[in-house]
């Protein structure tokens, strides 16, 4: 009589050979994509290409780590792309201005980074404050700040482009183009941000609060969680992530204009959702987000592997792959035979 089991109280979760599709799915989809890429063009697997691919995914990936917090806590931030643009712009202005004072070396770059972080925190706080204290839907607040930030960068650039003085570029270049033990710096930063994000979300009280708020705000309030403060903090974290992404972005293109970071918000949110975080909140996965970001970049890369498809259809192929990848990873995988055995 196996009911006895039900009576022994709560046993620790069993770690059997059970496939959690939400953890496993995104990974499988990514592997499938890579196989497709290699089949299309073996150059896909070249070291250079892989390095490029990972480096690129760092921007969106870092922003998406922040977005994971916001979305897990039941919010949304549409302003990240514009925020990145305005932060880039201000960084460039600050650094160009500081050349006279601190020279063209690392000092100036550091001042620029400091400005970036300060601005990111501020922008995030503004979004969070208006959402929580102003009681305005996050969608509206960040739609508004998206317009505001985008305008600001246009204004700062006087309708044109802000470019980093060429003297400083040499000092700053390694942040994008350099590498640490062969790993590109942006990838290193991405990794660190992801690990930090994972720890905060899964191993601190704050992370638990985010999930609780996203899951049921009332329960969170009845559980002595300072809902407004935690929620505001998620936007601040998002701002910080945007500023970090910007810091590694600026040396790549050395400029900022009104077209910088357009639609990054959509990519970041897509990375988060592809990774298995729920848009309605309550459930976040940093690991999934990382894979989601890499997946999106990989799709773009795959389109460049071959020119059998008309350029006009790039978007369509991208759309199909995204849907297919997510379809693959959402339990539908279970219908494929080899997985059914291992699964429930």
């Amino acid at each position, binding site marked *: 009589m196996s009911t006895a089991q039900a009576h022994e109280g709560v046993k620790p979760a069993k770690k059997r050979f059970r496939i959690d599709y939400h953890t496993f799915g995104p990974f499988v989809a990514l592997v499938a994509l890579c196989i497709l890429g290699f089949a299309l*063009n073996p*150059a*896909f697997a*070249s070291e*250079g*290409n892989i390095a*490029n691919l990972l480096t*690129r995914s760092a*921007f969106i990936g870092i922003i998406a780590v922040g977005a994971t917090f916001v979305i897990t806590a039941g919010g949304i931030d549409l302003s990240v792309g514009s925020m990145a643009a305005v932060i880039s712009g201000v960084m460039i202005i600050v650094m160009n201005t500081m050349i006279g004072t601190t020279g063209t070396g690392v000092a100036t770059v550091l001042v620029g980074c400091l400005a970036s972080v300060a601005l990111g925190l501020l922008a995030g706080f503004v979004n969070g404050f208006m959402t929580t204290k102003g009681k305005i839907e996050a969608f509206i607040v960040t739609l508004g700040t998206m317009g505001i930030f985008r305008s600001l960068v*246009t204004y700062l*650039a*006087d*309708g*044109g*482009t802000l*470019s980093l003085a*060429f003297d400083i*570029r040499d000092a700053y270049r390694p942040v994008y183009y350099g590498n640490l033990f062969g790993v590109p710096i942006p990838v290193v930063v991405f990794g660190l941000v992801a690990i930090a994000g994972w720890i905060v979300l899964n191993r601190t009280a704050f992370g638990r609060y985010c999930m609780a708020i996203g899951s049921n705000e009332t329960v969170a309030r009845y559980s002595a969680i300072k809902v407004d403060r935690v929620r505001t903090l998620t936007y601040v974290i998002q701002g910080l992530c945007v500023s970090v992404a910007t810091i590694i*972005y600026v040396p*790549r*293109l*050395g*400029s900022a*204009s*009104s*077209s*910088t*970071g*357009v*639609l990054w918000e959509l990519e970041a949110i897509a990375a988060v959702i592809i990774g298995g975080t729920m848009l309605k909140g309550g459930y976040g996965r940093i690991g999934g987000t990382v894979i989601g970001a890499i997946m999106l970049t990989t799709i*773009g*890369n795959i389109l*460049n*592997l071959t*020119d059998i498809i008309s*350029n*006009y259809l*790039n978007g369509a192929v991208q759309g199909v792959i995204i849907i297919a990848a997510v379809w693959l990873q959402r339990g539908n995988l279970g219908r494929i035979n080899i997985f059914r055995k291992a699964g429930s």
Partner: protein
Amino acid sequence: ATAQEIKIGVSIPAATHGWTGGVNWHAEQAMARLEAANPNIDIILMAADGPAQQANDLEDLVSIHQIDALVVLPFESEPLTDPVRMVKQSGAFITVVDRGLAQEGIEDVYVAGNNTALGAVSGEYFRERLGEGDNIVVLRGIPTVIDDERFNAFMETIEGSGITVLDNQYANWNRDDGFEVMQDFLSRFPDIDGVWAQDDDIALGVIEAVRQANREDEMFIVGGAGMKEIIQMVMEGSELVPVDVLYPPAMIATAMDITVNHFTSNGPVSGEYILGAPLITPDNAETYYFPDSTF
């Protein structure tokens, strides 16, 4: 694919509005033509949605396709300067089209469009047609360097002519925006003598708005680029659209031709090819009219 195959990468902005659509079309045509004529040449065409993606494309052209030459129409000059330099460092032959890079000496060939000239030529025409006390409105593109160059050149040219620019607003090189902005100008200003739309897509929207308000007789409209619909109107002697200023998307094909020449002809190819921005009038319109083009 023989060992001697020469790979040429072509990187252009995606077809997000009329002019870039034209660029795409001409690039596709040129690719087909050149590949057919030169069996040892493989052209890889990539269209990007923005500067960051174009930088990605350039990386991929090098790391995946190992191109021997690059033809690039930069989304924006500044952000693509470094990425193009990286391509150059891989040893490829570089042809830059339309928008110059922010630093000298990277490209081997520069096929330059001339946005300043487009603004100046348009301005000249307004000076000619209008004078003291006349009012015009200006519809601009998207806030970028290109738009700035055109606008500033135009404003400098008409300076001192006594023409008043009532207002300028961005219409994002988009027909719908052109239509709406013009509608609002029309409700706002009772007296408008001319409209500078600086782009044919915007101009098409402006035309409809003016027609809707029944004010065709009051003003004329000048666009830019050389879209077939507009050129046709010029050709037919339209009062509303008397002229156009050429800014041919076909320049991408020219650049591709030159680049292929570098590999097929014996002499080295280099230097600048600056395209003008000629005024299209009913007299010369026929030479610029390509009814089969999508643009």
